[in-house]
Structures are given as C-alpha cells and as structure tokens.
C-alpha cells in the first residue's frame, strides 16, 4: 500500500518541481527593429532585467523595419501581436496601444520626462500613456568635410541658406570629381523640413492639410532645378515610383556624395561604416526664406492593447524608461534623448570618434531650432498620406512625367481622396 502511494507521489512531485518555474514565469514578447546597434544594447539591458525579475521571461523578436511597417499593423487589426513593440508609426495605429497609466507606479515621472512626445502616440485630447519615445530624431544634412578641405572650399556657417550651400557643394564636387553634390532621402518627411523653412504650413491649426502652398512650391522648384542641373542624382528621386524610399547611405559612405540630407539616426551607422576613412560632419539645417528647420521624428516603445499581461508589460516598460536605463541605452546607441531629464543633464556618449561627438552636438542644437510645425506633424494622424502624396508626385516631376503645376494640383486631390477614404 505504501509503495503504491509512493509510485503516485514521486512522479507528481517531480512534475511539480519541473513545471513550477515555467508556470510561474510570464512570457513578454517584444517586437523590435534596429537602425544601428540598439537591438544588441536592449538585449543586454533586458538580460539584466530578467536577472532581477525571474518571474518574467522576455522574448526579444528582432525583425526588419519592413515587418514593423507591413506585418505588425495586420496583426494588430486582428487583435493579436506582441506585448510590446518598437514602432515609428506612432500616431496612425494609436487605437492599438495599451494605456499604461493605470499600471504605472509613477505616471508623473512619465509626464515630466516624456510628456512632450506623448501626443505623438495617443488620440487628440487623451491623457493615455501608451509608451515612450526611445530616441528623438531630427532630419538634417551630413557633409564629407574631407572633400571640402581637398577642394579648398569653406564650409558654410550656421544660418547659411540653401542658395549659399548649393554653389559650395557643386564647387566641391567639381574640384574633387565626386559625382553627386547633394543627395536627399527620397521621403516626404525629409522634404518637409526644408519646405517648412520656405514657409510651408503642411497643416492648419484645425488639422486640415494645407498642401500645396507657396512653401511647398518653393522647395519643390528647388528639387526639380537641382535635378535638372545635376546637383542631385536622377536615380535617387527619379529612379523609382510611388512612395518607395531610397536612401544614399552607401553612396555617402563611399565618398560619392558631398552632402547627404538624412537625419540623426544615421550617426551610429556612419561611425561604424566610415570610421576614419574621411571626416563626416553633421551641419545645421540650411535656411529657407522663413526658417532653418529640420523635422522631428523618432521611434517609440509602446505596449500593445491586446496583451494578456498588462501589469508585467508595465513593469518592463518602467524598467526601460527609468533614467539610468534610458541613459545607458542612449549613450551606447548614440541616439538623441527624448527624455527631458537626460536632455537637460546631457549624456556621456560611448564613442571616441570626434565626428560622432560633433554630429551629436549639431543635432542636439537642431532640436532647439525645430519649428513648432515640424514637431506637430509627428502627432498628425494623416502625416503619412501627406508625405506619400508629396514624394509620389515630386518623383514624377523629376522623372519628367508631370509638370510641377500638375504635380501640385494632383497632390491636393490625392491627399483629399486618401483622407476621405481613411475617414470612412
């Protein structure tokens, strides 16, 4: 009889002992994409978190940016998806974000340090805390300073206009035999900063699109002229169709471009790819007739509304958003901090590359020079429609399919049609 009980009890005991750690652990999945080394850094930080919180098992799914853009929205529409995701499309998908506020131990900390950017990820008028912006980005130009030195051309100072920059870039290209004086990401977002510098409104105070206007036209004329006179390479803006993004990272790293207009997120990549092959500097945004602004942007880490473990999601988010952790993350990834405390106290970046330090200084200064509209656009629900229409139609002008007048007229119709469709 005793043996019979033992036979039953031993497997039960063994099973319980084996199963207990697994049963106690809550699995939290994070969908993450990387521009540079941030995946590696966050994995390291999360490992420490898991050591402190054995009850939570974090699975970091590192995916391509395209997966975040194309697959995640479909998962969210069907009420599934990860527990936490790193996204850039913060506003359009805001209905799927979890409001962390009821689960946070100190919501005031979040409002104080991330408050400026919470509107980017929540509906207008809401006080929800869906997550935090992991890094702030600012669009702006990089130059190959070595080419300037070789050509004996002075680098234009802060406050120089596009009209002053372009002859200098062409002069450097001609003197050094570099094929592309200016390259700009084929992106409506990148175009919008210079357009605002020429007075573009993009949206009015009621949130209605104001495209096109004189500012858009002025910058669009520049783009078209720069392609016609060889300042910009035909294949970047004119080489593809629709909203397709084309960057010139490789061309810049290969010293085939004098100025590359992109943004602060390229710093880590350039530090890694270019190294000491040449001096690459970030320079202040060239001025138009109205301002000298880039565009704000950034990636955010958000909780997903469909998680079965909101408490644990909040615990992970609180850890990642805490000042020491976000400080280390920012220092190691060479990102601009979106955390107000860090922005005011400064960050000791982990790099001995003078180009990195200079670029970070320049972009941090550019944050302070952002026009309000350049920040507000990030919170505008239909910003992707505006950017898409602008780049699609300008691409057709560059390719010679449309006149600028036709393109501007079509931009207006495209935007109206798409907003009407999305608002049904």
């Amino acid at each position: 009889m005793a043996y019979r009980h033992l036979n039953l009890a031993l497997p039960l005991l063994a099973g319980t002992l084996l199963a207990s750690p697994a049963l106690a652990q809550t699995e939290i999945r994070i969908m993450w994409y990387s521009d540079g080394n941030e995946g590696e850094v966050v994995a390291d930080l999360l490992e420490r978190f898991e050591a402190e919180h054995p009850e939570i098992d974090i699975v970091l799914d590192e995916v391509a940016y395209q997966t975040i853009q194309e697959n995640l929205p479909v998962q969210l529409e069907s009420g599934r998806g990860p527990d936490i995701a790193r996204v850039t499309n913060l506003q359009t998908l805001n209905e799927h974000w979890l409001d962390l506020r009821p689960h946070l131990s100190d919501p005031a900390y979040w409002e104080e340090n991330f408050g400026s950017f919470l509107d980017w990820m929540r509906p207008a008028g809401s006080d929800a805390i869906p997550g935090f912006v992991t890094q702030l980005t600012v669009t702006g130009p990089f130059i190959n300073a070595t080419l300037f030195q070789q050509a004996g051309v002075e680098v234009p100072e802060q406050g120089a206009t596009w009209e002053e920059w372009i002859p200098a870039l062409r002069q450097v290209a001609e003197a050094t035999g570099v094929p592309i004086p200016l390259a700009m990401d084929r992106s409506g977002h990148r175009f919008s900063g210079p357009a605002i510098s020429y007075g573009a409104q993009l949206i009015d105070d009621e949130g209605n699109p104001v495209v096109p206007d004189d500012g858009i036209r002025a910058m669009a004329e520049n783009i078209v002229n720069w392609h016609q006179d060889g300042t910009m390479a035909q294949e970047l803006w004119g080489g593809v169709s629709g909203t397709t993004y084309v960057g010139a990272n490789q061309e810049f790293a290969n010293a085939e471009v004098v100025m590359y207009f992109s943004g602060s997120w390229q710093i880590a990549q350039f530090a890694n790819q270019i190294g000491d092959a040449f001096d690459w500097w970030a320079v202040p945004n060239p001025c138009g007739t109205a301002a000298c602004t880039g565009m704000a942007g950034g990636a955010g880490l958000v909780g997903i509304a469909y998680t079965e473990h909101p408490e644990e999601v909040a615990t992970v988010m609180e850890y990642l958003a805490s000042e020491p952790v976000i400080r280390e993350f920012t220092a190691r990834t060479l990102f601009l901090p979106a955390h107000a405390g860090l922005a005011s106290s400064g960050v000791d970046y982990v790099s001995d590359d003078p180009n990195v330090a200079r670029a970070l200084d320049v972009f941090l200064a550019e944050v302070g020079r952002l026009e309000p509209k350049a920040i507000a656009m990030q919170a505008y629900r239909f910003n992707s429609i505006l950017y898409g229409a602008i780049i699609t139609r300008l691409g057709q002008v560059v390719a010679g399919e449309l006149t600028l007048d036709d393109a501007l007229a079509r931009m207006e119709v495209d935007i109206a049609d798409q907003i009407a469709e999305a608002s049904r």
Partner: protein
Amino acid sequence: MTDETERPITSTPLASLRAAAFWPLRLVMNLIDRPLTWLQATFGQRAMIVFFLLPNMAIFGIFVMLPLVINVIYSFTGGSALFLDDRVGVGFEQYQTLFDCRDFTDPFSCRQDAFWAGVYNTLTFMLLQVPAVALTALVTALVLNREMRGRGFWRAIFFFPVLLSPVVVGLIWKWILERNGLLNALLNGLGLEGTVWLGDSFWAMFWAIFVSTWAHMGFYTLILLAGLQSIPRDLYEAADMDGTSRPRALLRITLPLLWPTMLVVLILALIRAVQIFDEVYVLTGGGPGTSTQMLVQYIYQTGFAALLRNLGLAAAASILMGLVLMVLTLLQLGIAARRSREVAG
C-alpha cells in the same frame, strides 16, 4: 472463404514476408472498401466521382474560391479597416474611381493615373516581351535540338536562370546596371561613357523586358524542345530525299508542326507578362516616375505597402486584372482542347 486480413498467406519465406509487410495496407484498403462499395451500390457511379473529387474541391474552394469571393466583396467596400465587419459598403464606387478618366488614352488624365499607367505599362511590356521571349526561345530550341557536343550542358546553361528566384534576378541585374555597376565599368574600360540605365524611362523599360526575357526564356525553350522532338524524324528524311533545303524544311515542316506548342508558349508567356511584378519591382522599383510600374505593383502599393491601406481600390483593380487573366486562360484551355482533339483525330 478466408479473410486475407485475418492472417498473412504463407507459401515461401519471401512471399510470407511480403504478405506480412502489405497486411496493414490490405487491412486499411478493406476498411475503406466497405463504405465505398455501399456508396456505389446506393448512389451509383456519379457519387463515386463526387466522393473522389471532394477533397480537391474542398482545398480549391477554401484556398481559391473563398478568397476570390472575399476579394469581390472587398471591392465593394471602402475605408482603411482590415476586416469586412468594420468596412463600409460603397457599391461600385471603387470601380468608378478606377474608370474616372477624361481620356483613356492618356493615363495622366485619369483620377487613378497610377492604375492606368500600370495598365499601359503592362500592355507595353506584354506586347514587347512576349514576342521577344517566344522568338529567343524558338531560336534557342532550334539550336539546342541539333546534334552538337555538350548539348546537355548548353541546355542546362539556358535553363539555369529559370531556377533563380525573381528577387535574385532583379538584384543581380540591378548591380549590373547601377551607376557604378558592371556594365558601366565595362563601357568605361572600352573608353565609352556609361549612363544611369535605370534613371531613363526608355532604358528602364528596355532592361525590364530584357531581364524578364533572360530569366524565363529557358522554361519556354524546354517546352519548344519537347515540341520539336515530337515531330516525326521520317518527315525530315523524306524531305531530305526530295532535296528540300533546310530553310524550306524549317518553314514547311518544323514551324507548322511546332505551331500548337508555340501557341501554348505564347499564351503562357502572355499570362506571365500580365502578372509581372517581382523582378521588375526589384530592378526598377516601377520607376523612373511610373514608367515601369506594372498593374500588380499598383495593386500591391495601394493595398499593402501604404501605411493607410486602400484595400477596396486594390481589390477592384485585382478583379479587373483577374478578368483579363481569365480570358487568357480560357484561350489557353481552348487551344489545348483543340490540340488534343487534333491529336486524337
């Protein structure tokens, strides 16, 4: 009478081993046989046809017909929601949007100019690429059909691109054709000036057709080779005895007898040309402007690539494209049926 399923038949050791191995199979077959016998006895021969077609029809219904029906329904809805429940019924509005044109011969006079640019580009691609691929496949097949050294090797060489993924094909040729690509390096080496091949509308379409022809020619060559080898040799021997020249034999024997196979090749190439997307998308991205943007790319970009997806419009465009493909498929089926009648007759 003993039931075979009860015990294996034993005569020789090998036979008993075989019987033992097949015993489970026989058991299963007997189990299936009884209901099937009952089905046939009760409902007749027709029931058996339905029974055997049912699994395939179920798969076809779930994975082909059902999505097709859902797609048709989507084409009558609007909004950016993914699920039908959340979408708004809009009747024929999406079709009206696609057909809202001042002048159908000018894509840029249409409200959805990208759709019509896609239609015209696909048409241009079809009219140029199909004859190009058929002609090069025919010439290659005629050459490879001759007795020559290393014939198997040459056949493999021409067939090799068919094995490559369209994305790989697109990327390889993109690297060849870009500003600092292999072609420009070659031209520069010869003292000639290169150009930005994919930045010019004419050259972008030319290379899209060239690359697609290169990638698919091997497949059609294989079909034509099979057609060539089915032509009876005695016809050529008779022609040779009559002193018929080779070009005349080609015109009077080979090409007429190869024509049914060539029709199949033409129809298959037409269907493939209408569906063209992947390799051209990777190669040119649809540019410059919209000059190589094909119809399928329009559907992909409207329905999937945009952040705010217009699934209704994409569905309507895909239904229109589906109708064109259906006509081409019926044409192919008609030709195939006529050919089999001719063979039987």
